[in-house]
């Protein structure tokens, strides 16, 4: 996990997970269109295929009154949850941890279901829950005592460029003043 690319991917996943959860957990039933438009139905079909399920998750139904927005939200969601440098299975575990930590009822149930669907066993789910719980403890202890980071030296800095970008020029020593 030394490459920044993996951490960028994880951070983007955390953001989208939270974005879905805040809408799904809010009392927004009245925003769900009774008869979604044909455009929205097309997006729904992609969502159902991606998750291999019969019902569209509530987070998407609630924004379906604006099919263009729905399509972009879905595009972002599909991108961050699809297999990439991180596996989809691992991403669902991260999303589950985020959802438990933020007390998202929708996210916790949804991502636990996705983890199981993707083959994670009860032991695997318990492992993620254990890590989530332990670090929910450590973080609060650290915050209460206002501990300062002291472990950032463990990981090396990743010198690779941004995707598609040029690598950093090699560092040359600055000549010292005489």
């Amino acid at each position, binding site marked *: 996990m030394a490459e920044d690319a993996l951490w960028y991917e994880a951070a983007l996943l*955390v953001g989208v997970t*939270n974005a879905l959860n805040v809408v799904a957990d809010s009392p927004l039933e009245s925003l769900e269109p009774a008869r979604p438009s044909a455009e929205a139905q097309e997006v729904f079909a992609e969502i159902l295929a991606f998750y291999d399920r019969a019902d569209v998750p509530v987070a998407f139904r609630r924004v379906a009154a604006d099919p263009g927005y729905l399509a972009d939200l879905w595009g972002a969601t599909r991108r961050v949850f699809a297999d990439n440098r991180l596996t989809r299975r691992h991403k669902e575990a*991260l999303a589950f941890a985020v959802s438990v930590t933020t007390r998202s009822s929708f996210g916790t149930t949804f991502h636990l279901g996705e983890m199981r669907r993707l083959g994670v066993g009860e032991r695997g789910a318990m492992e993620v829950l254990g890590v989530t719980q332990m670090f929910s*403890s450590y*973080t609060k202890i650290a915050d209460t005592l206002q501990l300062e*980071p002291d472990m950032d*030296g463990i990981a090396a800095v990743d010198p690779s460029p941004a995707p598609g970008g040029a690598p950093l020029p090699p560092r040359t020593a600055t000549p010292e003043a005489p």
Partner: protein
Amino acid sequence: MPTVRLRDASEYPAPIQKLFEIAKAWFKYDFAQPPAMSRVMAWDPELGAFHGRAMKRAMAPGEWSRAEKEMVAAVVSGVNACAY
């Protein structure tokens, strides 16, 4: 700045200092001082022992690798807005 004075490893009794050495091996990193969290948990060894074992059990490779679990820990810390 921490709200308490973090004690140096040398201020802890010998059995705790041994635990700090074990922690170094766990992190595979030669800290000048044990991490602040290790020193905090060592303040109450009876709690620290249970908590530390639970943490090591949770972080041990199983269905997920240690690295995958470290990323879970990092996102939980991030969501909790914990800079440490």
